């Protein structure tokens, strides 16, 4: 019986550095190979916004205050709206007649390319907020870079989404500061959340051969290049929030290659139920 994929994935960054070092010797990818990497890159973005959007929407009706309930629902709405554009473009690039809905509702966990951080369970409100902040800061830098994509369709979606994400980041930064530099209880919870989530941030900045391929074509940035700006925002905000960044550089990884935690399956079971049970249902 074949064993399940090992969570101890090879050092993707090292592999990518190796690939990048040889990139100028490599042949320009054939259109098919290039399109495949481009399709994957779009899934990595669109699946991240889809899964986080779904996670955040789980708070609808449950947040600790009405204003926060509404804010979370609005952030989820922005993310799902952006997903429609990213997965719509992914389907177009793939050219197999699939739609954004097909990609969202009819793929199984191993075909999803989101980083693991967005499938982490919500935990308490502070935990959700910390995950949002760590992701928003990355998302903001990613969209800034994607606005310079060599593909105008990517640049246009990024320009649209960046305006929305600027508000997400502003809100999550402010709340991380207020809760971190708040009561002893809120500070403890925010530190717990940071300790639990920090090891999931490293994956955002790992690059593999697909990242290298799209970066070489100017379609998307090399994830490693996003890290300095992300780190500077994160360090500033966490310092203001009086929180301590964990020292360990260990990074959980796998999501970008389709190796997920068990949580993703539960999300999909919930999110995809209707289309699985009643294929093609519309309303």
């Amino acid at each position, binding site marked *: 019986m074949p064993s399940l994929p090992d969570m101890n994935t090879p050092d993707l960054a090292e592999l990518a550095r190796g690939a990048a070092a040889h990139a100028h010797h490599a042949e320009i990818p054939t259109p098919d190979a290039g399109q495949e990497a481009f399709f994957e890159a779009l899934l990595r973005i669109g699946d991240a916004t889809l899964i986080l959007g779904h996670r955040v929407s789980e708070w609808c009706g449950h947040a600790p205050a009405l204003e926060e309930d*509404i804010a979370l629902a609005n952030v989820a709405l922005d993310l799902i709206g952006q997903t429609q554009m990213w997965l719509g473009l992914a389907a177009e690039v793939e050219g197999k007649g699939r739609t954004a809905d097909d990609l969202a509702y009819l793929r199984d966990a191993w075909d999803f390319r989101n980083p693991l951080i967005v499938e982490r369970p919500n935990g308490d409100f502070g935990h959700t907020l910390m995950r949002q902040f760590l992701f928003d800061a990355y998302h903001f830098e990613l969209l800034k870079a994607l606005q310079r994509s060599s593909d105008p369709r990517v*640049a246009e979606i990024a320009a*649209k989404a960046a305006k929305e994400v600027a508000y997400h980041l502003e809100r999550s930064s402010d709340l991380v500061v207020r809760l971190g530099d708040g009561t002893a209880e809120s500070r403890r919870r925010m530190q717990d959340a940071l300790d639990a989530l920090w090891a999931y941030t490293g994956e955002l900045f790992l690059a593999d051969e697909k990242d290298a391929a799209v970066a070489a074509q100017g379609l998307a940035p090399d994830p490693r290049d996003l890290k300095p700006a992300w780190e500077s925002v994160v360090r500033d905000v966490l310092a203001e929030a009086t929180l301590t960044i964990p020292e360990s550089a260990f990074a959980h990884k796998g999501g970008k290659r389709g190796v997920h935690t068990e949580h993703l399956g539960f999300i999909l079971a919930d999110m995809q139920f209707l289309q699985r049970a009643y294929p093609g249902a519309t309303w």
Partner: protein
Amino acid sequence: MTTVTHPSPAEVWDWLSHVPDPEIPVISLTDLGVIRDVAWDDDTLVVTVTPTYSGCPATAVINLDIEAALRAKGVRKLRLERQISPPWTTDWISAEGREKLRAYGIAPPIDGTAADGRLMGRVNRLAGADLAVACPRCGSKRTSKVSQFGSTPCKASYRCDDCLEPFDYFKCI
């Protein structure tokens, strides 16, 4: 032989200026600045619409309302196109639209503070800039933000510290 005369684009713009926004019905679609272009492609009327927020549920309703309004005016062949670039900005809300918003109780966006890829609020707060939102009821600038997100993605919740009115602020993007 009959000659079909199309209504001019200016006439169509005028019709659209009477179609209310589904969520903030005091302003029209042209006040909101979501209509990018009106043109004839042979005998088909093409209306280009830009969405406000990516996930705004009103987008579908807006398209439906445009279609209904133009059909009612006798337009038979109609095509709606979505344009996301340049992205919609609150700077496109007309001066008249801003006045209508204020009269309705929604503080209009502050001119020239549209999100431009920087964290305007944070940057300005740290720099101590005065970006006070005026209360649409009493005009006081002593107001506080309750939440970055209000009843719709495009609005934030505010409260007036003088007259105590809770109100929505149409935030800038």
